[in-house]
């Protein structure tokens, strides 16, 4: 048998060692395996130090990325080693390798031997592949292994269906690895090198006296596929060592010094030759064949990230890379663009509902109408919109939450987390002229921030986007609850209910939240509420401290377009800016890229390949990473594992941005359970609240597409009704009392907890069209007076009225003093904020602005953003804040 000698070739070794587990027993001895093995592999001529990669993964995607890189780069020998826990299914098949956050029986949290490892290695360009598996049930890896087409050798630490006792040995690595290292470092008497077969034989001899937990002899197994050669793994020998042959030295020298330049030379020659050939042939050329439409990719993200990702997607579309063939696509004329990308966004809760009802999403998209509508009447195809091929939420917490809402089996959508594409640390914006005394801006504990902003100190109103609607809001809540004292968020901490309650006490008054961080900042822009009645503004910028991301705060300070606020001519005046304070150990937004596979897609292969290529490009320092950092994000770490500092051109470097580009990026480490517990804590900290939806159903609503928007907004409001929140739905005018302008129809009485009733009523109006609408003009002020009187009967402070109207038709017949009485009533305690959505052409006129102001509510004009804007305001009705701070 001949021996394959990889010396001097481009070899790679990937050593995956997992010792720290969140839900499984730790394996402390595995920690040393990586260094021990690396030393043994680089000890002789085979691997150089830069050809060995150590990987200690916490998430499955980290293994995927490392495997892909190694498989792409290796041309000679590729060695992959895994030590850690392994699990199999009840039938002994489907070996799963466990990484730090893996949970048994949750396959999306583990690394599939067959689907991830083998399928990735099958694309490798190496001449030989050697795999070493040191985990329980490693002997079960054999079956799937034989389906591949590459020359591979596999060493399995245990025989089939056996576990191994190992992992708690003292320093120096596990028993098995230590034995392997010794053989590779010392060599075998009488032999000039150690081959794969030699290694297996020697290991068996060493382990002959050792037993598995089942009581039989511990016997490593091996397998070979598509090769009869043996592979040399070490040139260590107890005998006299022969010098490295000149041929090998020459090859290595060539590889290290010439190859790169040779490539350049070759490329130059090729370009010249092509150019010459092109010039001569130019006259004979016919027009190029037409390009068919490119593959359409649907990219779903959060509203905050949409503009930056839109720019990145465009850059990719027009890049040269996008004209290269994709795996699995049919024949296309050369040079055609392969993919085109549509970027769109939706609020977090709608994305969650969409994935939870993926069967309905698919059913509506197919036109079969399959998939059962839930009580909320979710219509995912309408919102969030298209079925995404890839989803980039603001943080991994959003992904965990969406996963939690999906059925365990049978969903037509499968989510694959491929890891982060861009970071932005979370910050608290403190008005520039109210900087906190004795508090550092970076690495300050949340506790100190809460104290520094309280009424005894700077007296600032903390404003947070809704944790239900926004990823930034959710991650800030996780930071507040779990890293409140500045401690590191482990994977198993539980939020302290009193801490949650305390934090929520400080957060915002009813009606002051926003659906997202950019809309929140837009409302705080100086002058946002003046000059343009269409734009809601609070005029409270100087008294507020928004909880947002570093990127959005920089955009705000620099006067960039933000939310629905257009770009300004220049940065804000220094006194109008916010200074970014970075709460300690709060994880940064990490924007993971989730590939979504839909069952039954005929073009699944090219679609997946297209998403994967885009994902790689987005992380490429010369590709998407540059676009995203130019927009104010922090880049993902490169191959060296170092998080790159913002480039000189980054807006974060501007002295006017108010941020600190040297502030660290804390990666997201919380477990799925913690996300759930934080949301539970948030929910518990909510006070019970009461909501009255008062809706204009006069016939004028039917014109100009107003009714669907109004019904959509009312429906969106109903989605905010939760366990602690009751509601009522009243409509006006009342058909039964044409002469009483104050008459309202109590479609759903106040105090109802079941959103289905309200939803059914709205559906009736939608389906009935004009028949459900009432022919006499809507007298808004009278109806509103009736509603406010009813609400004020209760002493509770967490209540609000959502008023949805076309326009007030009651003016001409109105008795004198109605408006004055209403305004006075609104100012009485307890406060009942009126949140108004106006569909009519006049928008938020002075009357409506006045009523909203008197009640500490807000007025929002109709438009595509209106339902979400309203939902954000409604979401905070139950926040246990002190009202009217």
């Amino acid at each position: 048998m001949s021996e394959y000698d990889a010396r001097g070739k481009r070899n790679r070794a990937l050593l995956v060692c997992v010792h720290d587990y969140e839900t499984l027993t730790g394996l402390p001895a595995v920690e040393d395996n990586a260094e021990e093995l690396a030393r043994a592999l680089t000890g002789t001529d085979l691997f150089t130090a830069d050809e060995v990669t150590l990987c200690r993964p916490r998430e499955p995607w980290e293994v995927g990325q490392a495997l892909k890189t190694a498989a792409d780069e290796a041309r000679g020998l590729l060695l992959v080693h895994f030590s850690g826990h392994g699990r199999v299914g009840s039938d002994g098949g489907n070996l799963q390798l466990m990484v730090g956050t893996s949970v048994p029986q949750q396959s999306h949290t583990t690394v599939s031997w067959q689907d991830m490892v083998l399928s990735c290695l099958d694309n490798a360009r190496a001449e030989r592949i050697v795999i070493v598996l040191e985990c329980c049930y490693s002997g079960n890896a054999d079956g799937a292994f034989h389906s591949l087409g590459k020359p591979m050798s596999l060493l399995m630490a245990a025989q089939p269906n056996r576990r191994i006792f190992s992992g708690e040995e003292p320093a120096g690595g596990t028993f098995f690895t230590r034995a392997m290292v010794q053989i590779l470092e010392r060599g075998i008497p009488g032999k000039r090198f150690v081959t794969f077969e030699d290694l297996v034989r020697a290991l068996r001899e060493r382990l002959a006296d050792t037993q598995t937990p089942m009581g039989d002899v511990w016997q490593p197994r091996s397998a070979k596929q598509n090769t009869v050669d043996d592979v040399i793994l070490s040139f260590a020998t107890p005998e006299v060592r022969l010098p490295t042959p000149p041929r090998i030295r020459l090859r290595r020298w060539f590889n290290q010094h010439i190859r790169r330049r040779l490539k350049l030379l070759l490329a130059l020659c090729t370009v010249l030759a092509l150019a010459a050939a092109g010039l001569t042939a130019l006259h004979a050329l016919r027009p190029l064949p037409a390009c068919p439409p490119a593959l359409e990719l649907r990219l779903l993200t959060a509203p905050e990230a949409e503009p930056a990702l839109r720019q990145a997607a465009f850059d990719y579309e027009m890049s040269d890379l996008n004209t290269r063939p994709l795996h699995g696509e049919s024949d296309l004329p050369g040079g055609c663009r392969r993919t085109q990308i549509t970027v769109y966004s939706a609020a977090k809760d709608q994305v969650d509902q969409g994935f939870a009802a993926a069967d309905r999403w698919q059913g509506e998209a197919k036109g079969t109408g399959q998939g059962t509508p839930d009580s909320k009447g979710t219509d995912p195809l309408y919102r969030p919109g298209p079925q995404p091929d890839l989803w980039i939420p603001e943080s991994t917490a959003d992904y965990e939450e969406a996963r939690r809402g999906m059925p365990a089996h049978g969903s037509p959508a499968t989510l694959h987390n491929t890891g982060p594409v861009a970071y932005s640390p979370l910050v608290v914006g403190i008005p520039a002229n109210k900087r906190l005394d004795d508090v550092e801006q970076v690495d300050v504990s949340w506790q100190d921030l809460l104290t520094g902003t309280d009424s005894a100190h700077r007296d600032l109103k903390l404003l947070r986007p809704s944790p239900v609607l926004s990823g930034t809001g959710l991650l800030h809540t996780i930071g507040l609850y779990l890293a409140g004292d500045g401690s590191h968020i482990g994977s198993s901490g539980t939020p302290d209910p009193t801490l949650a309650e305390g934090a929520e006490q400080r957060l915002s008054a009813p009606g002051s939240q926003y659906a997202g961080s950019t809309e929140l900042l837009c409302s705080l822009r100086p002058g946002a509420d003046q000059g343009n009645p269409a734009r809601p503004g609070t005029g409270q910028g100087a008294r507020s401290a928004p909880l947002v991301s570093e990127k959005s705060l920089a955009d705000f300070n620099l006067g960039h377009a933000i939310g629905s606020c257009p770009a300004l001519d220049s940065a804000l005046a220094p006194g109008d800016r916010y200074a970014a304070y970075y709460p300690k150990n709060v994880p940064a937004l990490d924007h993971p890229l989730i590939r979504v596979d839909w069952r039954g897609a005929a073009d699944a292969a090219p679609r997946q390949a297209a998403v994967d290529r885009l994902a790689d490009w987005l992380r490429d320092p010369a590709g998407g990473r540059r676009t995203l950092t130019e927009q104010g994000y922090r880049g993902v770490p490169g191959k060296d594992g170092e998080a790159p500092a913002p480039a000189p051109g980054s807006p974060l470097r501007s002295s006017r941005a108010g941020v600190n580009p040297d502030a660290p990026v804390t990666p997201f480490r919380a477990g799925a359970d913690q996300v759930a517990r934080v949301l539970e804590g948030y929910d518990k900290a909510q006070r019970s609240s009461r909501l009255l939806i008062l809706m204009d159903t006069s016939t004028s609503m039917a014109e100009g597409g107003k009714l669907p928007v109004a019904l959509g907004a009312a429906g969106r409001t109903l989605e905010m009704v939760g366990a602690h929140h009751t509601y009522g739905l009243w409509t006006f005018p009342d058909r039964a009392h044409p002469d009483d302008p104050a008459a309202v129809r109590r479609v759903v009485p106040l105090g109802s907890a079941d959103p289905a009733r309200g939803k059914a009523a709205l559906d009736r109006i939608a389906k009935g069209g004009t028949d459900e609408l009432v022919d006499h003009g809507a007298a808004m002020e009278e109806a509103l007076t009736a509603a406010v009187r009813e609400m004020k009967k209760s002493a509770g402070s967490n209540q609000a009225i959502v008023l949805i109207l076309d326009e007030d038709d009651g003016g001409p017949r109105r008795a004198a003093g109605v408006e004055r009485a209403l305004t006075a009533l609104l100012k009485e305690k307890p406060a009942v904020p009126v949140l108004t959505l106006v569909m009519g052409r006049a928008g938020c006129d002075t009357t409506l602005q006045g009523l909203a102001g008197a009640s500490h509510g807000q007025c929002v004009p109709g438009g595509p953003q209106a339902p979400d804007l309203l939902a954000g305001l409604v979401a905070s009705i139950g926040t246990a804040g002190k009202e009217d701070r």
Partner: protein
Amino acid sequence: MRTPRPVRSPRPVRTPRASLPTVLLCLTLTAAATGCTSGPQPGPEKGPIVLATGSDLSSTGVRQALIRAFEKRTGRSVRIVKLPDTADGQRSQLLAAGQSGNSDYDVLNLDVAWTAEFAEAGVIRPWGTSLDGDFLDSVVKTVSYDGQIWGVPFNSDAGLLYYRKDILHDYGYDEPPSNWGALKNMAGQVADAYNRKLAHDGKATTNRKMYGMVAQLRPYEGLTVNTLESAWAMGGDPDATSFTQGEQIGALQLGVAEIKDRLDSMIMPHETMSMDETESRRWFADGRALFMRNWPVEYASVAEKLTPGTQFDVAELPARPTDGKRMSVLGGQNLAISAGSKRPAGARALIEALTGPGSERCLLERGFAATRDSAYREAAKAPHCPLPPERAEHGSTGQRAPWPGQEPPYTRTLYAALRAAEPRPRSTHYQTFSKVVQIRVSEYLNSRGGTAIADALAREADEALTGRGEQQRTRRPADNG
């Protein structure tokens, strides 16, 4: 059972031109089977006809009333699938689902700009080789691609010039400007004089300052539309397939520079760069601009704040100086049969009913731009709208559409504008072209000074329209056997 279609192949069926007798025979058979007066014959088609559309058809309104009338008349039910609420989202979903072979829709309500792409992607099937001569010629172009007809125009649209009749009159102008140059002079001069008067009267505030003009320059499809109209006004040819060849060189450059000039000279406010249709209409209706380019659908909204015919009026867009043509971009929607439809006869019957002469007249009366010539005839000679009249509201101040049961006041102007209007580039890669325009023009308009991006813009626009990267466009790809 659905036949799987080849993935991403260009159009699945590419029949050679059929002989005349075959066409006649087919037409006769189709007419017999689905003639719109007799309704579809009870055939083997099962289940409701599935119509996929944006949200505007799924609730109230004239287009939904027409669908309900079809159901009542034929006994066939129509299921409306509500697509994403943005046009980009609708296109993306329909195209991607079509490419994945995943759609069982029967009728698609498509934006007029998508025909070429959907035809090439095999998402819709050909309708025939010609349409009834009653459809406006300009509008028929939006369903024509590669020698075939791919759908039927449902409702159209053309840009109009809204102007403040009262103020122009006060400063000595009784007619709207005839060409773009005149508009610029008039806008600058009248706005200046008006603002001076405000200042003199002590009424000048930021909110009351009068600007010359507003339009849609936010980076979305509206910006592409305004850019194309400006390029055409500078001599651009709507039928050209390249912006870097022949007489087209420079048209795009001049068009974009013209828009920037209106911004730099403060004829248009800075805020125009974040305006869409609604925002610009609000600005005009609030009395803050003398002119506005917008669609007729905003007429009623403006009329609620300004008196039509007295305070404001509409005209065709100004003419281009060289040949006097007044070219607007055509908007609107077409109905097409989905390639995967299992109920093609029902789909055809529904489309014919929705686009028949009576239906088009209904659309016109209820504020849409009809696609048939006959709809624009005088009321007595026009086809009769079969829908019952809308109920009038009796509320004290409740306003109905200002023109119950008759044609809207802008109808003659719109008719002329529609006939002169032109479709956007009919390319498989229109969407990419539009993205290039939105991103590059927006960058340029936001830049200070006159940085010339226009060459790069024209080159990138060409690159977008060919579907190829830059290097590949100029050389033949290596033949790899």
